[in-house]
């Protein structure tokens, strides 16, 4: 690779990572504001105009808090666990095409790469739960292990429909395959399964069993403090960004906007961001609306409804493709 190419890749990486980290801190603010207004509150108001500097204050606080370690904890694993989570989440961003031709790595197996990294990311929670040597953390870790295995299958199977439709696992090709119609119209079942599995995969309400605060204090993160707790937070919100970006790319046409005259002037990047944040808003909306599921309900939902649905969707899509070609 030429030297200029390497510099260009380096610039791209620094842009994407810094934007992602800023996104993580401000999406927390966005969430608090949105949920606040949904519950007829104002949300953060004190720090800066309408609380705009609240994320900065939170980040500074997290950085300077003491890093406490339980006395009987498994030291190396306790330290490494949050790092695994953050690295897996940030690594996934490398293959996401923000607009035509802009992605750090345009892999042929982009979709599989994201699935692989999200399964590595689940180790962070399991290991954190085990290494803390606390009952609440441990229960949170075990719940997460079972939940992630179950929903990962449904998620992977729902994406097979997309791969069948576009004939590729490359995210740029998937977006290009949607130039006529978005896959949400041809693959509604896959879209539904993917969205539910994505919520379970990122441990968000109503599937936030691993950190259910009414049952498990804070689940796997109970014993963590300071910046290590912050890293778990970062991994969760970065994971939300990646799942939202996947929904935008696989089902909503990525950077593709409506083909009407004044709107064609808007750059594709804006459409992508609008779709991603629209879906993140949907995440918050669900959180403010639905109560938490019970654990056995979550499991039977995953195995008895979503996996068969996704399998049926694959068979149906393959049949349709066979008939039409």
């Amino acid at each position, binding site marked *: 690779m030429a030297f200029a190419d390497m510099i260009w890749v380096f610039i791209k990486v620094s842009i994407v990572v810094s934007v992602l980290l800023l996104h993580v801190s401000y999406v927390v603010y966005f969430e608090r504001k949105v949920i606040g207004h949904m519950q007829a509150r104002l949300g953060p108001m004190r720090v800066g105009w309408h609380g705009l500097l609240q994320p900065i204050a939170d980040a500074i606080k997290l950085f300077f808090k003491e890093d406490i370690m339980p006395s009987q904890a498994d030291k190396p694993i306790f330290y490494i666990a949050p790092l695994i989570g953050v690295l897996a989440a940030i690594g996934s961003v490398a293959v996401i095409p923000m607009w035509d031709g802009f992605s750090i790595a345009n892999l042929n197996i982009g979709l*599989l790469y994201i699935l692989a990294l999200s399964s590595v990311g689940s180790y962070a929670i399991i290991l954190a739960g085990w290494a803390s040597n606390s009952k609440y953390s441990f229960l949170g870790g*075990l719940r997460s*292990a079972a939940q992630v295995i179950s929903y990962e299958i449904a998620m992977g199977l729902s994406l097979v429909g997309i791969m069948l439709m576009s004939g590729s696992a490359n995210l740029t090709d998937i977006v290009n395959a949607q130039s006529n119609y978005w896959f949400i119209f041809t693959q509604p079942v896959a879209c539904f399964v993917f969205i539910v599995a994505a919520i379970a995969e990122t441990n968000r309400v109503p599937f936030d069993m691993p950190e259910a605060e009414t049952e498990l204090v804070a689940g796997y993160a109970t014993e963590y403090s300071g910046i290590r707790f912050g890293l778990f937070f970062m991994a969760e919100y970065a994971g939300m960004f990646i799942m939202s970006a996947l929904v935008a790319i696989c089902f909503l046409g990525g950077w593709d906007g409506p083909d009407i005259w004044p709107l064609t002037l808007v750059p594709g990047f804006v459409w992508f961001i609008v779709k991603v944040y629209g879906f993140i808003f949907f995440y918050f909306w669900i959180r403010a609306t639905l109560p938490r599921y019970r654990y056995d309900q979550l499991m039977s939902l995953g195995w008895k409804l979503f996996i068969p649905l996704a399998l049926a969707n694959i068979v149906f899509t393959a049949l349709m493709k066979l008939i039409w070609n």
Partner: protein
Amino acid sequence: MSLQQMFFMYFAIAMTGLSLLIVTRKNPVHSVLMMLLLFVHIAGLYLFLNAEFMAAIQIIVYAGAIMVLFLFVIMLLNLRSEETVAKYQKQWPVSVGIGVVLAASLVIILSKITVIPQLGEYSIEAIQAEGSLMTVGKVLYTQYLLPFEIASIILLVAIIGAVVLAKKRIQ
């Protein structure tokens, strides 16, 4: 040494070292973590061989599903009391003997290998032109369809067996 050889040396040494670490750790959870690292290295080696699809599947299946199940079982068993069991059991001379024989046969086999200069149909260029996902799929569903289906049936038998075992316990 070329860059490629350096990469390969790194992977070879790291994988051997990690394998040793897996069997010498006292704590089973540490062993599982080392095994996770080993799988990541194997995936790296696949990438190095231009087998992107294999690399991704290696991580998704082994690291993502099988190792999580290992971890799950180890945690449920709570093996901490087992840590005090002696590392070397009575049968260690037999184990060493078998190990030496296997290592010797590996050395003999490797010394007999002659490299065939001509390449097959699937050269690196041919795979890159089509994408490794497409190539694997085509070969698997045409040339090796029968072995593939046999493997599926074996897995189906295992699934049915698991269902039967689970059903028995309820009654």
